[in-house]
């Protein structure tokens, strides 16, 4: 297609959008609602995932060392643990600290007999994992380290969390796909009303020898315009709504804290703009393709 034709068709797309501005407004409105629904589903999913991540970090394993380890050996084990791929954090709990923590629950005189060399408790590392799906592998690796006597953990919690997280991932993904499909369906039907009033134009274009691409182009431009506008406005709205949600719901428990918007702004912005444009263009093109294929049946 020649550049002056493309320029003309872009102008036509803009002109058509303006001339059908009421319908364009309706399409943008519907698209914003759909994008907001999808966006919020995404944010709910991200927040649930975030809570799981927090829960994972709470779900730690305690690595008890042999009591005969020198200070250097203890430090070396700590460094090895820290160097492991699946380890998120390593906290050292010396046997003195361990005893102090235990001691709070015991009678004062009981503590005295366990001080110094008499302390039976081991040096311990508290290890938090990054991905609980790799729990078993990491556990085996730690158990095989020299100097490690025993690893204490809650295998059931780890497995349950992993299972639930997988389920949330699947359900969240499915909800987003369904919402996008519903958006496309609604948009197709909204734009169909605009296209219906322009079937005469399509018929005339075809009767004077316009190619399918020529007829389709302004509709694509219109779809891009509608999608971009809806994506931009929708993004602004979701930002405002999420921000006010964050301001109004502050939880004491860090496990329940909302993910900050700044952590998700880029995927949301790209998703809104791309999603809006994609649904807008597909909706626009699908709506008019019926008239494009029709030969002779169009008698306005």
């Amino acid at each position: 297609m020649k550049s002056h034709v493309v320029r003309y068709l872009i102008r036509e797309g803009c002109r058509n959008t303006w001339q059908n501005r009421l319908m364009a407004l309706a399409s943008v409105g519907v698209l914003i609602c759909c994008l907001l629904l999808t966006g919020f589903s995404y944010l709910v999913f991200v927040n649930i995932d975030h809570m799981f991540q927090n829960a994972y970090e709470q779900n730690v394993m305690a690595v008890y060392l042999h009591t005969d380890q020198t200070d250097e050996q203890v430090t070396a084990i700590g460094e090895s643990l820290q160097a492991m791929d699946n380890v998120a954090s390593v906290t050292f709990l010396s046997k003195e600290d361990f005893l102090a923590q235990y001691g709070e629950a015991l009678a004062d005189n009981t503590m005295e007999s366990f001080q110094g060399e008499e302390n039976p408790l081991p040096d311990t590392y508290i290890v938090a994992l990054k991905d609980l799906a790799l729990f078993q592998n990491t556990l085996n690796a730690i158990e095989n380290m020299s100097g490690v006597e025993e690893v204490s953990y809650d295998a059931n919690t780890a497995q349950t969390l992993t299972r639930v997280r997988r389920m949330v991932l699947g359900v969240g993904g499915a909800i987003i796909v369904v919402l996008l499909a519903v958006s496309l369906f609604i948009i197709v039907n909204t734009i169909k009303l605009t296209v219906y009033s322009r079937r005469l134009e399509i018929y005339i274009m075809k009767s004077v020898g316009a190619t399918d691409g020529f007829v389709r182009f302004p509709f694509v431009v219109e779809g891009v315009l509608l999608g971009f506008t809806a994506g931009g406005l929708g993004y602004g709205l979701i930002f405002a709504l999420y921000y006010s949600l964050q301001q109004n719901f502050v939880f004491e428990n860090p496990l329940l804290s909302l993910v900050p918007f700044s952590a998700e702004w880029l995927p949301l912005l790209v998703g809104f703009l791309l999603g809006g444009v994609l649904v807008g263009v597909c909706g626009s093109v699908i709506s008019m393709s019926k008239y494009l294929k029709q030969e002779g049946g169009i008698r306005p």
Partner: protein
Amino acid sequence: MIEFQNVYKIYESGSHALRDVNLHIDDGEFAFIVGASGAGKSTFLKLIMREELPTSGEVTVNNFRLSRLKRKQVPYFRRTMGIVFQDFRLIDTMTVYENVAFSMRVVGKTKREINRRVHHVLQLLDLQGKSNRYPPSLSGGEQQRVGLARALVNNPSLIIADEPTGNVDPQMSHDIVDMLSRINEKGTTVLMVTHQHELVHQFHHRVITLEGGRIVSDTGRPLHTEQVSLDATADVTAGGVRV
């Protein structure tokens, strides 16, 4: 050139719209297609415009064998013809100028080419003062002239007029056929469908009559038409502008 060879058209509903139509219209001819409603006129035109395909037989228009035409080739075939409709089919939201220019934009002409040619054709059809008007503000006759300008602007070798005088008064009807005749004198083939027999009789052109999907009479090309064509002057309208 239009050629029908043993053409049948049966719609899915079972109605036989055309039965064994054989016809040859040469380049540069003017032919009226007449017949009562339901005679098959519309189907006849749809086959020529390649809006429908024959159930059997072969239709050839401007050297395009239509049943062998691929979907992608149809637009290029349609560019060889101009179509005038009974209900004008103008876009109400575009000015007269834009409606006519539209046909040229579709075929990728530049702004300069469009500007020159559209003004020329509007002048030819005595519409130069109306170029910024919108179709609803024009009379039926004026709207049909805009439709004619749109059909003419790409300089097609074939003009198809589907009841172009159906929505205009008798004087304007005569004027429109007169304009088509003058366009034909310049070598453009004109095919006009009408049911106004009295109008047909005012002009000496070939008359093909359809009835029940068959051609029941064909006057053939009148000899003196060719004579008139040879004597034709450059004046197409009172403005005296060449097509």
